[in-house]
């Protein structure tokens, strides 16, 4: 069943802050095999002009995806998550995420489309720090594949 177009533009309440831990950044960098010292060595990060270690560019996805859970699990929207695949992903940064950030995400349904029986949902996540400054905007495109013929 096609998703309700009237949900386009709906914005969900900002999430409780997610605190970015330096050991979580290290764990993520090691998991992707990235030895860039800006992720683990405060002095190296400072030498690049950052106040503390920074996170790899895609680190913040897990924070915004969790926030998008508000949309995905919204019973009124009725997305069939068992059929969902990740279509596109985009980030636009005002600055890199760094250790100690307390990040809040505001999710908005940017678009709902139906193509060949697939539901396509675009969710924008605006990520702000504790001071209210913009850090990064993320766009998650989810595709709920059409149910198979019975």
């Amino acid at each position, binding site marked *: 069943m096609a998703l309700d177009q009237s949900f386009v533009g709906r914005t969900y309440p900002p999430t409780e802050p997610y605190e970015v831990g330096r050991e*979580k950044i290290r*764990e*993520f960098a*090691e*998991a*992707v*095999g*990235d030895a*860039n010292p*800006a*992720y683990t060595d405060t002095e190296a990060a400072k*030498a*690049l*002009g*950052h106040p503390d270690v*920074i996170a*790899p*560019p*895609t680190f913040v*996805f*897990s924070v915004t*995806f*969790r926030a998008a859970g508000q949309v995905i699990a919204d019973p009124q929207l009725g997305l069939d998550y068992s059929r969902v*695949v*990740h*279509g*596109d*992903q*985009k*980030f*636009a*940064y005002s*600055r*890199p995420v760094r250790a100690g950030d307390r990040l809040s995400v505001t999710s908005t349904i940017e678009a709902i489309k139906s193509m060949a029986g697939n539901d396509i949902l675009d969710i924008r996540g605006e990520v702000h720090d504790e001071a209210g400054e913009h850090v990064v905007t993320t*766009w998650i495109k989810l595709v709920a594949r059409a149910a198979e013929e019975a």
Partner: protein
Amino acid sequence: MTAKISYSDVEVGTELPAQSFPVDRATLVRYAGASGDFNPIHWNEKFAKEVGLPDVIAHGMFTMAEAIRVVTDWTGDPGAVVEYGVRFTKPVVVPNDDKGALIEVSAKVAAKLDDNTVRVDLTAISAGQKVLGMSRAVVRLA
């Protein structure tokens, strides 16, 4: 932000050093823990096959994380990345053997933009197929 590559030193067509990233089942388990994405299609072969996949597949976000390393290793400063987007076109299939899979990433400067930024277009290939489409980053150079 202090990228080690100068805007004046690059042209449209400048190639970034290509890299290959191996991925096996242990890599995926580790990434699942680090990212919090425990979807069983990334570690449980039986489950993956039941939902119609050929085998366990890598997290799309893992591939996205690897591909941008070609850019961040080039600039030195990962904070130089201003924008980054991809489309997940094909899964990276990761067999349970002693080889796993390989993600081969190449990239080149596609456009010179304002404020010392350039657009880099990335190509990511695994098992002969493009696994990312529309894969582009905007980075600020020195």
